[in-house]
């Protein structure tokens, strides 16, 4: 398969190099918000949206910075874009969907420090993706993030009903489960190159 084709980029960022389980990006919300199936889904959608917007913005910013020869400003400007996108999403959501806004609560501003989003912006710059490629890459990363979060939430809801040794409960347990999930995702490597 052509590694530059849009379909492959989507598949690769979603499954083969899943952001959470292979690159370890966005671990904080992965551990923190994966307790309940419903919040996990919403968080996934919000993150995917912010990823798409910030990916488009950072593509344009990269072009401008290259023209100005000011590459050293890359990191500072990316993070500024992400912070303002999150702010924007927050305001839009507050106006049009107050219920969702309340449900996400504190997690919304925390998306700013979600490394998966900055990761998308940095990876697409490093790999010199074109504009449509960047968008598809962001979409795939978001879908992969949502998938990992929802899978984890499903497993954790089941675990709540079983008897687990006292000491193992909590994060240690979640990490072990994540390890097994990550091993399962390694199976997707068979689909094609890195």
């Amino acid at each position, binding site marked *: 398969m052509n590694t530059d084709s849009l379909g492959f980029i989507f598949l690769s960022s979603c499954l083969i190099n899943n952001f959470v389980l292979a*690159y370890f990006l966005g671990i904080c919300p992965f551990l923190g918000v994966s307790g309940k199936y419903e919040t996990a889904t919403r968080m996934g959608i919000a993150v995917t949206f912010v990823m798409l917007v910030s990916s488009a913005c950072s593509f344009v910013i990269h072009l401008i910075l290259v023209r100005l020869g000011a590459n050293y400003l890359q*990191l500072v400007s990316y*993070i*500024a874009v992400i*912070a303002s996108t999150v702010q924007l999403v927050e305001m839009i959501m507050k106006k049009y969907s107050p219920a969702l806004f309340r449900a996400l609560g504190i997690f919304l501003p925390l998306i*700013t420090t979600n490394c998966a989003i900055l990761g998308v912006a940095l990876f697409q710059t490093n790999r010199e993706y074109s504009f449509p490629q960047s968008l598809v890459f962001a979409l795939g990363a978001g879908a992969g993030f949502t998938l990992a979060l929802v899978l984890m939430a499903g497993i954790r809801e089941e675990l709540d009903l079983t008897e687990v040794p006292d000491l193992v409960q909590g994060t*240690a347990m979640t*990490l072990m489960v994540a390890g097994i999930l*990550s091993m399962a995702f390694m199976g997707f490597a068979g689909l094609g190159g890195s």
Partner: protein
Amino acid sequence: MSENADVFLKKLWEENPVFVQLLGMCPVLAVSNSVVNSLAMGLATTFVLICSSVLVSLLRNHIPKQVRIATFIMIIATFVTLVEYIIQAISLDIHKALGAFISLIVVNCIILGRAESFASKNPPGKAFVDAVGVGVGFTLAILSMGSIREVLGSGSFAGVDLFGAGYEPWIIMILPGGGFFVLGALLLAVNKINRSRKVKA
């Protein structure tokens, strides 16, 4: 002086940013597949942490409350850019191995957390001690992860072969899945130690 030492030790173990507060997990998992990588990451993060804590603390009376988070992130991003160029100058290999994860120090919640909850409320001296404690705690955590994973996964320590040619490396340990397992096991151990200490006291 002894008060400072107390703060330092407390940050190092009882409030270890990784094992107890569960902050900054992303770099701990991602770059801990070898000793050299994890040491470089630990030192880089500590440097950024110390510089940004001291600067935030110096500016604490001049930053308006409404835009403080944005200001903190800008300060942190500046130091991270600096560190990225320093690492590139010292060793291209390490820069290549760590890749985007150097830039991702910006979104390490430990640094923003210290800026927001400690440095913005305390004088520079105190902020410095706090940052050093947290930084060393982080470095220790990531280094212990790196050591375990490299010894098990490639049978070597910092590139030096330990077991000879007969050793069959435990490959899974340097792959992503192994990172989760080792961190989970370490958390279990820390829980266990802290609990038995509490029972005694």
